[in-house]
């Protein structure tokens, strides 16, 4: 028989255990998330030279955003291009590719591994391989020459008109891997009995995809859409590796990195940029946070099937 004091001691030990387990991760969150965010807000309202509270950074941000050749204006425009590409092209393609792999198209095991390669291989290597592939001396130019076309001698990444589109093409080329796996995982959970019954009723593959599989994997589709929208202002390609922001290719994510990284000789040497970076980050967060909350609410309202 356990008496009251023993039970109380047991409870105390448990509380000690629980907080002992959580203490360090919680402290890490307080330092690396909470205090860092507060510090970032403070930086946004601080003058880089005088260290006094100011709204000057916001004026500067507005100038960068609205002037015809403003850095942030170009960065925002490109970021939205990357976001749209993710949303309209990469996500649907990933879902379609996942469906055919799930339906065990010939060679699906090999395709699955090869299509996942871009997620495994370092961007540094992927970008170099792609740059050679689409460069003036590359295979694509060789094929284009056969049909009378050619890639400009200076390459696609050295021209304002082609650089961003070439990087966008790279993101499509490499972007399907992880989402494809997520969609495939969800499709694998669809009960075979449902698909079998539909097939016996004469259901075509198209109907099977649109009327059975897509509604049943709606939670995963919602997850992918939410993740894509969460990253609306951080959508980007590997700009640092392709152009280092030249030829109007900069994005918000790259602009932030470049401003903090500075000349790149040693990390984070550009301290005078910290304030404008934090200010821009705060403005985009204030726009992005309600947007993503709204989208999440909308997604939660969608009916989902239990199986």
């Amino acid at each position: 028989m356990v008496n009251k004091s023993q039970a109380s001691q047991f409870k105390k030990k448990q509380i000690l255990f629980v907080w002992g387990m959580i203490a360090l991760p919680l402290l890490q969150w307080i330092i690396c998330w909470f205090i860092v965010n507060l510090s970032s807000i403070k930086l946004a309202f601080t003058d880089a030279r005088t260290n006094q509270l100011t709204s000057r950074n916001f004026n500067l941000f507005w100038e960068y955003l609205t002037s015809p050749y403003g850095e942030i204006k170009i960065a925002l425009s490109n970021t939205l291009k990357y976001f749209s590409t993710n949303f309209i092209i990469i996500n649907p393609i990933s879902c379609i590719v996942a469906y055919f792999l799930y339906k065990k198209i010939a060679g699906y095991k090999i395709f699955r591994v090869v299509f996942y390669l871009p997620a495994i291989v370092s961007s540094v290597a992927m970008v170099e391989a792609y740059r050679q592939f689409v460069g003036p001396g590359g295979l694509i130019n060789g094929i284009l020459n056969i049909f009378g076309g050619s890639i400009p001698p200076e390459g696609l990444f050295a021209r304002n008109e082609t650089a961003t589109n070439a990087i966008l093409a790279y993101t499509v080329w490499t972007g399907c891997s992880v989402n494809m796996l997520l969609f495939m995982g969800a499709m694998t959970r669809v009960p075979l009995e449902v698909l079998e019954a539909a097939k016996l009723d004469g259901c075509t593959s198209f109907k099977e995809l649109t009327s059975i599989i897509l509604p049943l994997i709606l939670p995963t589709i919602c997850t992918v859409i939410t993740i894509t929208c969460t990253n609306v202002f951080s959508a980007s390609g590997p700009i640092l590796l392709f152009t280092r922001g030249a030829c109007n290719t900069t994005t918000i994510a790259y602009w932030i990195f470049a401003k903090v990284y500075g000349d790149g000789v040693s990390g984070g040497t550009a301290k005078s940029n910290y304030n404008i970076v934090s200010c821009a980050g705060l403005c985009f967060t204030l726009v992005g946070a309600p947007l993503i909350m709204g989208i999440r609410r909308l997604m939660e309202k969608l009916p989902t099937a239990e199986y």
Partner: protein
Amino acid sequence: MKKKDENIINRRSLQEKIIFGIVFASFVLYALSLLAPFISLIFNSLKDGMEYIDHAKLKQSFYPPKTPLFSNYWDSLTTMKAMNSVGEYVYLPMMFLNSIWYTCLFVGAGVFASSLTAYVVSKYKFKGRTVIDGIAVFSMTIPVIGTTAAMLKMLNFVGVYNTPLLPIFIGFGGFGFNYLVLRGFFSNLSWSYAESVFVDGGGDLTVFFKIMLPQAVPCLLTLFLMAFITTWNDYQTLLLYMPDYPSLSSGLYLVERSLTRDPLGYPTYYAGLVISIIPIITIFSIFSDTIMANFTVGGLKG
């Protein structure tokens, strides 16, 4: 029974067979497009410096080398270097070592910390439990942008900037994606094992380390592998926060920056790139089934 179901499901009409044929051809082309650049990269890694430049001028970069120069691989190991902030050279084998310890510390700390928070939140009722769960979900879904500068200041203030302690410090986050997956996993584990241990006089730590954690090994392994691949390939974090410890990814980026002054060095650089891919491809080949099998709705099996 399952086999029979699958046979019925995968039975295709003529029209569907044509569609699958077209899709198959597209998949083959896409797969080739993914593999061809790497073959070209390997070809260029085996060329002599002059041959590489000549091929580039003649728009024949994808041509195989006349005589494969395997010594480029040895050269990349012995001569390829990146300069750190104090002007010291870091060679490729050192970059490889940096990649290993940085990735293992960062990922290990992250997965372990998440297992601690996820376990107590899913198995214990205590004051603040809902708040902690809310923090985890909130900080994951709110798109906070532009805190890089504040983070850099914080790391300098704490004194871990550009030190080997950094991966543990920034990695020991108990929340995020790992937390959500592990919370789902631990919630589904039976508590009766724990009760038996308590009856035998064991404590909460015994239950966690000897009963619960061993059962979570497959899930932890998958999370570890996925994070390992991402962290191994991450170059921006190291460029920003650990400039004196270039990894394979960040170091090769620094090497590439200096190559514009010496185009003859490209084949050696490509050899270094190929070497940098080998460990991660090897790990993926060994554990690909584990990674693929554990992906389901919203991420991993919980």
